[in-house]
């Protein structure tokens, strides 16, 4: 302030005081404004923001139920749940998905395929805030590497997940089926609430059939998460209801034995307990490691499995539809006796061929020169075709159809075997509809020995054989023996639909069974070599199914062609004779003769079940027996 200049200090002070009052008013006004703003946010709109804040921090997470376990009849664990660590990403929480994937790829190995699969899942419709798996089965090192860098990777979690594991992978694959990731089609059909936290669903077999029981009920938890999506604590929880544990009729030892009996071959064994219909073994060889399918099989591995000439993915026991060949003869014999076209004593002259009329086409017997005079028992023991040509023509297609249908042919009679096929039981109508041709008597001739149009699965053959073993009583094939949980077996298992076969003379069952025993124990029985030395009596029937051609689009070398043009060997039978404990159907593809190849396999199954299991169950081999013709 320049001295000497006059200043009215009092006026200056008054001016300042006025200005200060204005400033004070301004300050009060503005602070009042802030307070009003606070009032608006904190009091008036409080509810909105408390909701927002809770929505921020509280996430409702579904807690998937633990999938029920599957045991065999002796309590051996066949399907369990194993913790697997995987790295998952919640795309909604990731700022830049490409950067995150790139950083993850630097930390852990992520294959091209896994990346592609992840990106495919990313594009597919999915639940918001769902964790998408990127890689499974993390190693300890992977988990450590991710833990160190977790703060740099928002939205990325290492999660432990219980994943289905089949300890006997290949051996039980076709009997149990497998679970796999829920795919897009399944996503549209499943109960989206109950499956909110579930990533796996039964794809085939038992896993598929009892999906509802095995899955259980979803639970929920309210968890507090931070801004980066990490779960901090559980606020409330409703526990899931775990899936029911299932006990199957399956006997793991029988299953292993069946698998090893066919090891190195292609074929199927179905072993049934006639009394209950319980399936003791359901083997289709070769199998595949079902564990590969659980978390998603690689394209290369899948291609290898699906293009293999041995068709390991093909469940021969349920879906292999073969001409039953001579194994149909016991059922034909029952039909012929009951329909009255033949009697126990009636004999047929077998010159080695059969003609519908003199000079007509000759339907040959397998034995050149024929068997001479043949009654029913001998026709069974020797598998005489002429006898059944004759009976078939006498019965006609309608009668045959009626009886064979009662034995379950042309139908899937199984109660809980997912994916079983019905084979083909031809009829007049069928031929007219499909072939647009009338039924010729020649068709009946072929049908009499299980050739021609007729197709059946090993499961159907086993079931029909069990009906004979039960003297007409139907025990439909089933896998489920019991449920360990709140549910009773009756609630879970579908009801039986079959009615028993009652013959005009119920003694005919014994007669046919005795004839089948002749196959095994008779002096001229085709499978007598396979039954040699058995301390129990058994019934059986051998069969051969001709292979006519190979699929044209497949390539085989000459050696393979020779091998693959050999007949399929079949055998059905049960034991012991008077109180049947086991019925089996065996097919060995391109195995040659049923008596030489298939019957010894069945004998080994009988022995194991009735006499005790061999020491080294997984390495049992049966020598093919040498038999002349059948």
């Amino acid at each position, binding site marked *: 302030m320049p001295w000497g200049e006059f200043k009215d200090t009092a006026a200056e002070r008054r001016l300042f005081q006025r200005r200060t009052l204005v400033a004070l008013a301004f300050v009060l006004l503005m602070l009042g404004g802030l307070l009003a703003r606070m009032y608006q946010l*904190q009091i008036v709109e409080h509810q909105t923001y408390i909701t927002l804040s809770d929505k921020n921090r509280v996430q409702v997470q579904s807690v998937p139920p633990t999938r029920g376990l599957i045991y065999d009849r002796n309590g051996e664990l066949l399907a369990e749940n194993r913790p697997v660590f995987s790295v998952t990403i919640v795309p909604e929480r990731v700022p830049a998905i490409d950067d995150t994937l790139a950083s993850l790829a630097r930390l852990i190995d992520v294959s091209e395929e896994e990346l592609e699969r992840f990106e495919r899942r990313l594009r597919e419709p999915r639940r918001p805030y769902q964790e998408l798996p990127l890689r499974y089965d993390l190693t300890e090192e992977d988990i450590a590497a991710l833990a160190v860098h977790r703060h740099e990777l928002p939205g990325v979690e290492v999660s432990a997940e219980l994943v289905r594991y089949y300890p006997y992978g290949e051996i039980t694959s076709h009997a149990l089926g497998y679970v796999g990731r829920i795919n897009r089609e399944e996503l549209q059909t499943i109960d989206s609430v109950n499956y909110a936290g579930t990533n796996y669903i039964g794809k085939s077999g038992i896993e598929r059939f009892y999906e509802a029981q095995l899955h259980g009920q979803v639970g929920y938890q309210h968890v507090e998460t931070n*801004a980066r999506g990490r779960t901090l604590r559980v606020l409330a929880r409703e526990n899931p209801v775990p899936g029911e544990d299932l006990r199957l009729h399956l006997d793991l030892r029988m299953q292993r034995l069946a698998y090893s009996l066919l090891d190195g071959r292609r074929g199927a064994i179905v072993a049934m307990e006639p009394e209950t219909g319980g399936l003791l073994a359901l083997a289709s060889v070769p199998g595949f490691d079902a564990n590969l399918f659980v978390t998603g099989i690689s394209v290369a591995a899948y291609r290898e499995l699906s293009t293999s000439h041995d068709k390991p993915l093909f469940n021969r026991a349920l879906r292999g539809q073969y001409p039953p060949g001579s194994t149909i003869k016991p059922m034909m014999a029952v039909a012929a006796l009951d329909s009255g076209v033949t009697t126990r004593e009636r004999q047929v002259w077998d010159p080695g061929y059969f003609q519908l009329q003199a000079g007509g086409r000759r339907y040959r017997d397998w034995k050149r020169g024929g068997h001479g005079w043949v009654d029913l028992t001998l026709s069974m023991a020797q598998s005489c075709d002429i006898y059944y040509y004759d009976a078939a023509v006498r019965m006609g297609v309608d009668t045959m159809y009626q009886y064979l249908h009662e034995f379950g042919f042309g139908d899937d009679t199984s109660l809980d075997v997912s994916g079983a096929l019905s084979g083909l039981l031809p009829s007049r109508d069928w031929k007219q509809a499909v072939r647009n041709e009338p039924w010729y008597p020649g068709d009946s001739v072929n049908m009499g020995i299980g050739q021609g149009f007729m197709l059946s699965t090993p499961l159907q053959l086993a079931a029909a054989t069990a009906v004979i073993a039960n003297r007409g009583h139907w025990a439909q094939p089933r896998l489920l023996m019991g449920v360990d949980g709140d549910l009773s077996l009756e609630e879970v298992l579908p009801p039986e639909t079959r009615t028993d076969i009652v013959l005009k003379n119920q003694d005919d069952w014994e007669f046919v069974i005795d004839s089948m025993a002749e196959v095994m124990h008779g002096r001229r029985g085709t499978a007598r070599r396979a039954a040699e030395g058995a301390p129990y009596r058994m019934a059986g029937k051998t069969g051969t199914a001709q292979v006519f051609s190979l699929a044209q689009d497949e390539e085989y070398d000459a050696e393979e062609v020779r091998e693959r043009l050999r007949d399929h060997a079949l055998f059905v039978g049960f034991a012991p004779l008077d109180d049947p404990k086991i019925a089996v159907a065996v097919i060995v593809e391109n195995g040659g003769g049923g008596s030489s190849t298939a019957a010894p396999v069945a004998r080994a199954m009988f022995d194991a079940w009735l006499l005790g299991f061999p020491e080294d169950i997984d390495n049992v081999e049966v020598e093919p027996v040498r038999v002349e013709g059948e």
Partner: protein
Amino acid sequence: MRASGFLSPTPDRGFTRQKSIWSVLHLDPILLLLLFLLVGGGMFVLYSGADRNLEMLKAQGIRMAVAFAVMLVFAQLDPSVYRRWAPWLYLIGLGALIAVLLVGVGAKGAQRWLALPGLPRFQPSELMKLVVPIMAAWFLSRHYIPPRLTHVAVALAIVLVPMALIIKQPDLGTALLVGTAGLFVVFFAGISWKLIAAFVGMVSVAAPMMWFFVMRDYQKQRVLTLLDPQSDPLGAGWNIIQSKTAIGSGGWSGKGWLQGTQSHLEFLPESHTDFIVAVLAEEFGFVGMLALLGLYLLILFRCMYIAVNAQDSFGRLVAGALTMTFFIYIFVNIGMVSGLLPVVGVPLPLISYGGTSSVTLLAAFGVLMSIQTHRRMIGA
């Protein structure tokens, strides 16, 4: 003039009375108490905002101790010292601001710091929050009050030149505070309301011009975000949405100390620095905000009392302008956090984590205390 005034620096108390400890220390006890309350309470909030980080709390405590020491030093200096030094400080400040633009260091695309050899790193723009009002007050108090138009023009130039240099860094928040500090000097000096109206009119014309020619993209984004935070809820709008959610979810009495989910679960960004008031609002609710604003208001009252009772125009203008700067801090910060104003980097005074602003603020309170406690027997 009373003779006793020459002997006693506190003429209102009379020379016969014992000099109080406060007049010896040149501190204003009421203001000091209020500041202690504010800083002490702020530490509680900071402990929560920094997610119970004791290290950070310790660091802040040390900074506050330093800042109070600076206040003590500034309080000892006679107001005449500030007046005498004003032009020189101003020139040094301008030089430093230019130096910042040339050789400054910084981060995130802004050069704000000066690291001169032999001196601690410092932010010249912070210094200018004090120097600009002092310089403007020095200039205007030399002339007639209310000032003539030419003097107003010069005073505006004194304010606008450093402001422009700071905008150039760019540091809009500090420029705003420096500018308002200077402009309040002009206001308190008593320029006519016509001029004020004209100035307001000019600003409202200039604002759109600023938009097109001065403001950077990120600054424009902040304004757009303010207008519609939902337009980019995960990007620029995130801060505002989350801080409003934090404040609003506090309700009447809040979620309780250390119980704020928005801040502790990391939804609220900058919860220990610029957005700390949201932590307070969330954990202590409307009641807490009432207490905070009440405390701030008491401080402002006391400061205005000091300003009104200052002995000369220079003291009045400086005290008034510094008081209003403090208020602008409060308003801009809380306005920004509650979504009334665009996001500018202005901390909540004396509570936000960080040393620079606290030192500047307490230095300003030191100046205020100096004005209050150094009295000469001049004027009435």
